[in-house]
């Protein structure tokens, strides 16, 4: 039985006349790990800062366990924040940093000592309590910041891109460690990131944000496998967009023309009409690369191949000039499996692995188009 811990309703926030969060509503369940995911400027950090109380919404209410806390100052909210650059107090030892919140609560000395040591043990820093923050590595500082925030046993922990300053390997370790902490403590985590991989691997639920609006709210699997719109599909993971056109509609199936192939696909949840253009979405790992003499699929040629260790990623140019990405696992029976550039192949997929989206009037640009637009501006 899940129960709502925090709810935002009709939240709006503007900075200098620019809308950053636009009438957004969201409920966060007790004990869940929820991630706010989006590109920079999507409003995710502002949203988090309104939960913490550092920003007040222009409109709407913030409710925590049924109590309206919209106007409550940060020091009176039973939530704690882990900041992007840790914000450790540079003049205090690790111990005093972690003890700060408990001292503010005027706890007895013995209790403070015990709880700080417990928190430091939890992040494996019990031997570092007398060090100053600048004597620690980035990863250690990160763990102190987490210990400092959880020592107060908040109802909810807000994490603002806490891993973005760490190198790749350390980030992976900390992801696992954070997940473990969240399980052990049973505290609700609200995690802000622009890294979709991080969001997918850690969250119970993901909120995909763009321009202050929720694009999709769902489990990592839902967001990845059944993106709600073109933006989510492009932002989360890599996706191939095949242009399709509806040729026939039945009860539960529709026929779609893709590159001259007639495929019978499951009927999507949105309304379709005959001749309607559609996006047929396929993740690189869902594509099958076939021999050029195969009868199935669309013809193309290999233009790029990247060895990724566990997979072989290739870019295939189709006959109409569009490029698609395919990611294939190595086959144990064929260790020499590889492509040469320019090799002709055919591309296909198993029916049912695709995902259909309606065309949108204001579709976001692809990365390449965005770069080109940037260049034109400068």
């Amino acid at each position: 039985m899940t129960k709502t811990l925090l709810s935002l309703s009709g939240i709006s926030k503007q900075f200098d006349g620019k809308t950053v969060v636009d009438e957004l509503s969201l409920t966060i369940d007790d004990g869940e790990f929820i991630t706010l995911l989006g590109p920079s400027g999507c409003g995710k950090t502002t949203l988090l800062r309104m939960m913490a109380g550092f920003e007040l919404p222009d409109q709407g209410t913030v409710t925590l366990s049924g109590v309206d806390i919209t106007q409550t100052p940060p020091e009176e909210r039973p939530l704690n924040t882990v900041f992007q650059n840790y914000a450790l107090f540079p003049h205090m030892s690790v111990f005093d940093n972690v003890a700060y919140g408990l001292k503010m609560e005027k706890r007895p000395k013995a209790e403070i000592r015990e709880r700080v040591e417990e928190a430091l043990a939890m992040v494996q820093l019990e031997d570092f309590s007398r060090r100053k923050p600048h004597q620690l590595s980035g990863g250690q500082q990160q763990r102190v910041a987490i210990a400092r925030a959880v020592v107060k046993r908040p109802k909810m922990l807000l994490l603002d891109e806490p891993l973005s300053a760490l190198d790749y390997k350390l980030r992976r370790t900390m992801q696992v460690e954070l997940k473990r902490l969240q399980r052990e403590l049973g505290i609700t985590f609200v995690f802000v990131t622009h890294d979709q991989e991080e969001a997918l691997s850690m969250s119970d639920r993901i909120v995909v944000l763009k321009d202050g609006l929720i694009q999709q709210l769902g489990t990592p699997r839902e967001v990845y496998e059944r993106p709600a719109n073109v933006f989510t599909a492009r932002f989360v993971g890599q996706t191939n967009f095949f242009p399709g056109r509806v040729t026939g509609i039945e009860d539960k199936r529709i026929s779609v023309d893709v590159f001259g192939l007639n495929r019978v696909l499951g009927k999507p949840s949105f309304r379709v009409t005959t001749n309607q253009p559609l996006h047929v979405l396929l993740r690189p790992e869902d594509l099958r690369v076939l021999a050029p003499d195969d009868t199935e699929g669309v013809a193309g040629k290999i233009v790029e191949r990247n060895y990724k260790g566990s997979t072989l990623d290739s870019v295939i140019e189709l006959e109409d000039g569009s490029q698609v990405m395919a990611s294939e696992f190595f086959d144990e029976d064929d260790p020499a499996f590889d492509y040469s550039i320019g090799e002709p192949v055919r591309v296909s997929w198993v029916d049912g692995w695709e995902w259909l989206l309606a065309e949108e009037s204001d579709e976001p640009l692809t990365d390449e188009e965005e770069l080109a637009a940037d260049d034109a501006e400068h």
Partner: protein
Amino acid sequence: MRWLPRTYLALVYLLLYVPIIVLVVFSFNDSRTGYSWGGLSLRWYESLFNNHAMVQAMWNSLWLALTAATVSTLIGALTALALHRYRFRGKKVLNGMLFVVMMSPEIVLAISLLGLFLLLGLKLGYVSLLLAHVTFCLPFVVITVMARLAGFDERLPEAARDLGASDFTMTRTVLIPVIMPALMAGWMLGFTLSMDDVVVSTFVSGPSYEILPLRIYSMVRVGLKPEVNALGTLLLVFSLVMLMFSHWILSRSKQ
């Protein structure tokens, strides 16, 4: 040609230090004239400390520098915080005006302060000196503290608030400790500026409160007495101690 840079460097340091060394050496000179060596002696130190007017001027100067530095640090720190923290109309103008006071010729400040004090009917003495010294120390303190605040992580106050500290507690436990080195540096700067100011002090001091630089100046006017060398040496030692102290504070704050 390897000797050239070394000789050059030696020459620069010689020019810097010869006057100071001569002063220190001659303060221990037994001879009455400053031109011949008459053997080692502490008689000028003795006569310096027997000179009551001189000792009084020394205490006056120390007290003035102490109070002026403290008052300007208090006012200056609050001014810097306000300029750093709040966004308001005319902030840039106020910032620029600090530099105007700093860069304007001292004589201008001296005349205008004297005019102001006369207009107000303020008796020239300790109070007028204190007000004048606080005025010219203030911009230095504000700029020193603002430089430190510019590198201050804005997330620190937020982190303190997030952990349950009120605005006042945050200022006491986080903000002030973090900017402490700048407060110390500002104080020291104010102390030094006040200690050796002549121009402004000449205008705004009265007979009731004589300070050291003016005393020395009037002494030197009637001929260079060897006592001045002794006094100079004492001041030099004092500055060295202050320098070491500030160095110690800075290195401690870095740990």
